[in-house]
């Protein structure tokens, strides 16, 4: 193995151990309550900030951890191995909001906001989706109209992670013609800006500790200094942000699948039927073999995308493949996990029903499976 690979492996092992120690103490004991009550545990995110988990990719000069995507994959998957909803929130904070500012913010914006985000003092949100435009986000209806040094925003966004508890929001809104991919612009909006508020919080199937709400803009005036990059670049920027974000959703799916498999292996060894552990039935052990093989393949795709990203190579196709495959197998693996647990798997006393519910988000968020297939097919047909 190359020296570089050894360093990455050793760092990843240390990060893995750190997150396992942290999660057993700070996440596992509370996750069932958070899940039941849909509580978004803000203090937990401050603690993760102190550990450097809220600015994994942010360079040291902005008080971040300065790591690459390989380590980031480890962070998200290890958190999700315990609780997918916390993994989703950490991913949305790091890749989407923080990632957008990091890639496209100017120096003054980065100096002003990245240290707060990287330390977890502020929680970040990112708003692209609207009630009527999800997969087809480019046809968005929320508009910003120029008025001197200000832009006046009207409209709404929905399904926004941290839409209520977020402190800073990167939102992509229309500044030009509908249908023109250069007709949209990104702005950052700080909580409390007049005319900006959060609406309804979704009551969800899974990922319940991760807050998802609506954002409402009513004559919200935003200074032009809050524009990220140039006018008209917002949508193009967001596609690039999503290229990286998809790697984090692949990691999220991978972690959920792994958590479900590990729980299944233990259970299958302990649960006896017909006088034997159920793991001794080929019908069960073959399921475990399939689950493990799919997880291994998903990890290879995800690590491959991370490697390309770390080497600044094109990653659109590979990150879409990783996201598509890992999220689909996360659903399959957690479904089989419930099956292996039998009736107990269907109850809240065992962990697998939560993996099952949480996993489904992965085939939807940050571009559905169908949209990933569009991205992949376009790339191979080009």
């Amino acid at each position, binding site marked *: 193995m190359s020296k570089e690979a050894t360093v990455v492996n050793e760092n990843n092992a*240390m990060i893995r*151990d*750190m997150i396992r120690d942290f999660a057993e103490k700070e996440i596992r004991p509370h996750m069932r309550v958070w899940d039941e009550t849909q509580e978004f545990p803000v203090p937990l995110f401050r603690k993760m900030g102190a550990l450097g988990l809220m600015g*994994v990719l942010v360079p*040291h000069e902005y008080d971040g*951890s300065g*790591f690459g995507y390989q*380590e980031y994959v480890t962070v998200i998957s290890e958190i999700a191995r315990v609780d997918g909803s916390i993994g989703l929130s950490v991913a949305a904070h790091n890749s989407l909001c923080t990632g957008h500012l990091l890639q496209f913010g100017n120096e003054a914006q980065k100096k002003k906001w990245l240290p707060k985000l990287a330390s977890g003092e502020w929680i970040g949100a990112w708003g692209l989706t609207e009630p009527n435009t999800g997969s087809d986000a480019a046809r968005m209806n929320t508009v910003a109209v120029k008025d001197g040094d200000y832009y006046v925003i009207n409209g709404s966004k929905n399904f926004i992670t941290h839409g209520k508890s977020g402190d800073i929001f990167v939102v992509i809104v229309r500044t030009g013609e509908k249908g023109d991919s250069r007709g949209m612009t990104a702005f950052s909006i700080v909580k409390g800006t007049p005319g900006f508020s959060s609406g309804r919080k979704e009551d969800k199937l899974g990922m319940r500790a991760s807050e998802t709400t609506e954002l409402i803009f009513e004559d919200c005036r935003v200074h032009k200094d809050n524009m990220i990059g140039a006018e008209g670049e917002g949508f193009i920027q967001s596609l690039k942000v999503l290229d990286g974000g998809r790697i984090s959703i692949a990691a999220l799916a991978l972690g959920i699948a792994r958590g479900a498999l590990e729980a299944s292996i233990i259970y299958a060894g302990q649960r006896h039927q017909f006088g034997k552990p159920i793991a001794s039935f080929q019908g069960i052990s073959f399921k475990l073999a399939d689950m493990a093989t799919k997880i291994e393949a998903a990890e290879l795709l995800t690590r491959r995308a991370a490697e390309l990203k770390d080497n600044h190579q094109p990653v659109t196709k590979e990150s879409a493949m990783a996201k598509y495959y890992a999220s689909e197998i996360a659903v399959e693996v957690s479904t089989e996990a419930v099956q292996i647990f039998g009736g107990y798997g269907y109850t809240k006393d065992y962990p697998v029903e939560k993996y099952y519910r949480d996993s489904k988000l992965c085939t939807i968020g940050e571009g559905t499976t169908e949209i990933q297939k569009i991205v992949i097919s376009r790339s191979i047909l080009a």
Partner: protein
Amino acid sequence: MKILVCITHVPDTTSRIAFTDGDTKFDSNGVQYIIGPYDDYAVARAVELKESQGATITVVNVGRVETEPTIRKALAIGADDAIRINAEPEDSYFVAKQIANVAKDSGYDLILMGRESIDFNGGVVHGIVGELLEIPSVSSVMKLDIDGNVAKIAREIEGGKEYIELEMPFVAGCQEPIAEWKIPNMRGIMTARSKPLNVVDPVDTDHLDKLVRFELPPPKGDIKMIDPEHMEELVSLLKNEAKVL
């Protein structure tokens, strides 16, 4: 204040233990290694002292190159530099002699160790190092505060605690709750690589003992499952077979 923390590289507490070579060698196959749990508390207390009153922390380990990831974890938690004494830690006296040699002219105010290793559980290295350096050593230290040149210590004794004060330098074998257990943060993990890890050769040392062989406790017997409907059967088995009633 200059603090030396001695750390062991030991199998994770959940490891399955096996031996090879006619029960004379530990089988390290598939074993995950950690910083000895008591040593971990010693590191954590050193970092707390560094944060509260300023100190430089050196960690030392007697071991081969495979212990370096464990050493770097201590650097990630907050030690400033590290020394690896490049030798197999063959017995307690050998290890103590190596540590004493590194420490003797380096002016450490505090030498912190774990109360005991968790692989061979000798609980003696701190005592021997103290003796070799002609400074005091105290063990089972559960509280350690420094006031000027004087340490205030609480140590665990059979059935209670003993409070003592002594002047630095000295050696302490630490245990919980001496410090809040620490996990490294991302910044620490990244900077661990850029901190000095100096590898030094061991000094010649007599071996005072020789390993003959290891022995595992007898394996646990098979479990018999008794239907809760048949309590009489359970009672009879406990009486006649297990002979515990």
